[in-house]
């Protein structure tokens, strides 16, 4: 299985303070879901941001679907995120002034000027996450769990190669979190994307194919 996400020798320090991690390697294949856990402040979110091209590593390289991130300029990284990466945030970040369909269709609309296509894809994804009849609704109509399902739909709608999720269930109760995670894992595996979840939650980590603990010396496999 070729890795959709390949990280090699990554190092990052907080300038003037401390080394977050060094010599970090990671490979995530298609349909694989990897959870990264670790103590607060160890650099989990920083790792995710470096993978997304939103932060710079001190050393090492990141490849997404074979493309090396390092040499890319700002515009190319933006294009890469737009086309190849999906994001799920702890706070959902569903825009209150767009319909749910428009929220989900946003990544498609960023690459295609055809609103009909964007709407159709968004509608299908909403149906996939169990909100097929809510496309005309707005964020304020939904519960936290439903909002995160919309966010998952948005992360998957443009069929990205890589999905990055930062504490995706941090704002949800355990039952809702379990349902959302199950949905997320199914959708990732069905879509054949590679997914990396950063979390503190053992329950969240439990749905992953692999759980890695971030330490200053890199990632340590917890169980597979």
């Amino acid at each position, binding site marked *: 299985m070729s890795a959709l996400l390949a990280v090699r020798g990554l190092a990052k320090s907080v300038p003037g303070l401390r080394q977050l991690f060094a010599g970090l390697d990671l490979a995530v294949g298609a349909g694989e879901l990897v959870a990264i856990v670790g103590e607060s402040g160890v650099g989990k979110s920083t790792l995710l941001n470096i993978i997304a091209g939103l932060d710079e590593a001190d050393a090492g390289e990141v490849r997404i679907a074979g493309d090396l991130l390092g040499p890319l300029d700002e515009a190319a990284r933006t294009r890469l*995120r737009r086309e190849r990466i999906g994001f799920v945030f702890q706070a959902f970040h569903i825009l209150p002034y767009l319909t749910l369909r*428009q929220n989900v269709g946003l990544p498609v609309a960023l690459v295609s000027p055809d609103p009909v296509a964007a709407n159709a894809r968004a509608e299908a994804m909403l149906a996939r996450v169990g909100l097929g009849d809510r496309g005309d609704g*707005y964020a304020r109509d939904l519960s936290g769990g439903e909002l995160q399902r919309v966010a998952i739909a948005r992360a998957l709608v443009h069929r990205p190669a890589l999905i990055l999720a930062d504490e995706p269930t941090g704002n949800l109760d355990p039952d809702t979190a379990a349902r959302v995670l199950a949905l997320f894992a199914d959708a990732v595996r069905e879509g054949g994307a590679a997914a990396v979840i950063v979390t503190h939650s053992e329950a969240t980590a439990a749905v992953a194919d692999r759980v890695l603990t971030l330490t200053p010396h890199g990632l340590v496999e917890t169980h597979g």
Partner: protein
Amino acid sequence: MAEPGVVSARLALGWLIAGEWRAHPARFLLTALAIAVGVALGFAVHLINGSALASFDGAVRGVNGAADLAVRATSPLGFDERAYPRLSLAPGVADASPVVSLPAQANGARFTLLGLDAIRAAAVTPSLIGAQARGPDASTDALFDDDGLFLSRTTLAAAHAKTGDTITVAANGRRVRLRIIGLLPAVAEGQAIGVIDIAAAQESFGRLGRLDRLDLRLADAAAARAALPDLLPAGSVIASPDTVAQQGESLSRAYRVNLDMLALVALLTGGFLVYSAQSLSVARRLRAFALLRTLGLPRSGIVTAVAVEGLAIGLVGAGVGLAAGYGLASVALRWFGGDLGGGYFRGDAGLAFQPLAAAGFLGLGLAAALLGSILPARAAARAAPAAALKASGDPVDPRARVPWKPAVALLAAGGVAALLPPIAALPLFGFAGIALLLAGGIAGMPWLARRLLGPWARRNIASVPRLLAIRHLHGAPGAAATALCGMVASTALMIAMATMVTSFRGAVDEWLGEVLAADLYLRAEGGAGFDPATQARLAATPGVSALAFSRQLPLTIRADRAPLTLIARPLTGPSARLLVPVGRPIAVPPGAIAVWVSEPAQRLYGWNPGEAIRLPVAGNARFVVAGIWRDYARQAGAVVIDAAAYTRITGDATRDEAAATLAPGARADAVGRGMRARLPAGLRDAVSLAEPSTLRSFALDLFDRSFAVTYLLEAVAILVGLAGVAATISAQTVARSREFGMLRHLGVSKRQLTAMLAQEGALLGLVGAVAGVLLGGVVSQVLIHVVNPQSFNFTMETRVPVGTVLGVIAALVAAAAATAVIAGRRATAADAVLAVREDW
């Protein structure tokens, strides 16, 4: 009164308020500055008006001496001096002093020349008695010399003369050599007065048998006021020092009130800016307030905290504003004069601090800041703490119904108020109507934004930046209204003022074109005139095809109002066409003398066509109003009668103006020289000649100068409004940094974000401009059809300043877009990673 919970929580409230100021000092200062600008302008205009009026009042009282009451001539023709013994013996009158009063000129100095009986004046108006200079050539009876002249210090200085000099004084068309024999020590500095013996004045200046005034000292005021009306000679009225002072006050009052109102617009805009800033600040702190509510702070605690912030903003702003206003007033008095270019007052006005007015403007500044704070504070206090804690505090809801009924109610109330009549000749309901219309227009902003953007929001938009921009504004029209309220208010007023001024200027220009139809105009200054022989000589000047003479006399109809102008001119032949009629004229009954009443005179005195009126000329002669004519030159009113009828009833064949139509091929300058050469030698210097183009540009210059200050005040209001838009958009944009962070994660580039913000800003500016222009259009109709006629007695048709309207729209769109982009740079420059984090 705050409830106990608030009092006990004062420490927490103090922390809350201090923390907000520490975190956002620039916001606090900018908001205070908006109040400061409004208070400064209002206070400065008030101080300037007060100083100018005090100076004018002093001048009037100086000329009048300290008489208890006066019988005054209603026209420069004076009244019969035989009334003097009768009036001096009237019940309640202790003493009477006859006066001849003439506008005079000497060595370039203009002053009022009074002819007095020194013995009588010493008893009635002692402040007008001169003190003889001491010296070897000073005789005790010089006081009664025919050529002895006393001057006030101001006149002496202006005439560049000294006691003992002999100067030529021109008055009533005569030039007389007079010797300065002393000063008027009791006349205050700044007042231009000269005094000579009354007999000499009557003899030397052609006023034999006539008096202009009879100053009275009363023993029993009630008895005198009861008896005098029946004893008044024709062509006179009773006037007290107060009523005379009111003449000038009444003429300029509407102008001053209008300036005051315009200055207060800046304060109103400042109040809206406080509202914008406080709304944003409250929205940003909703969760903090919710937390405090959860911790036990009562609802009123939130209102108190925000209100105290507003009061502090008001206190700082108003304090700075009062100091700046005083400085501004002193600079403006030096540069523009006491009437700010309005042309109502002459002379220097000294600046005096007015504590009561200062307290009033301090109160207004505090009220504007407090009101601007209380509304958002109440909204914050009403929010349910649990929901506010959970939510991000984002008020966006695209489906929420936007209320329109309050806006309609306010607009309707504004419309009704505007239709109400004036109070004390001031359009107070008109201004109240404008305030209500502005409030209604601003209350209707969210509805308008929703309506304007609805069709776009429903369309499938391919461009992501455009989609985001339109949907955000459409979803949060309240935020748009918050950002734009100050701007809409100032834009509406600017458009309204510009429309009114354009309409007024256009009407004046058109009117000038119609009334200045002759080729050359002559005017005799300083009471001089053309006698029949001179008129005949002038008419025979080579190159003159026709010459229409006219006589202009100020006529006092009511002692407390500025005199109207009686114009006697030929009403048959070509010059009759020069009256611009308003409405249909009527046929005057045979034998009656027709009078044409100017529009201001009709409004001031209620004279309508067909009505018989009496004018204080030729023994209160009777006239029938033949029609109304348009006149933009004489705010105090004017009436026109036929020149032949005027001569017949008054015996006055003198004329002081002439309009010449030139023969084909004749040159105006050559004809002018020819006419001047035909004038008697003593008259040549007293006659001015002008071509219509000169008069036209002079009139329009005067017009522009009198409106220059209004443009300045509007510009300040617009700048305050723009600053408000900039601050609000900036704050709103910065508050959306998490949204921008998420979009950056999704792959929206910085350029796309900038495009989105530019489009959003431009749309916001467009909505504001459309609202401002629509509202300005409505307000302009109140200004044109209510405020203007009620203030100045002029009516006009609406002329839309298309260029200004388009320019304002373009400027607003550009300014809002640029502000959004600049603020957006700051917001999008924030680390996209940090922006999406959940911490707060």
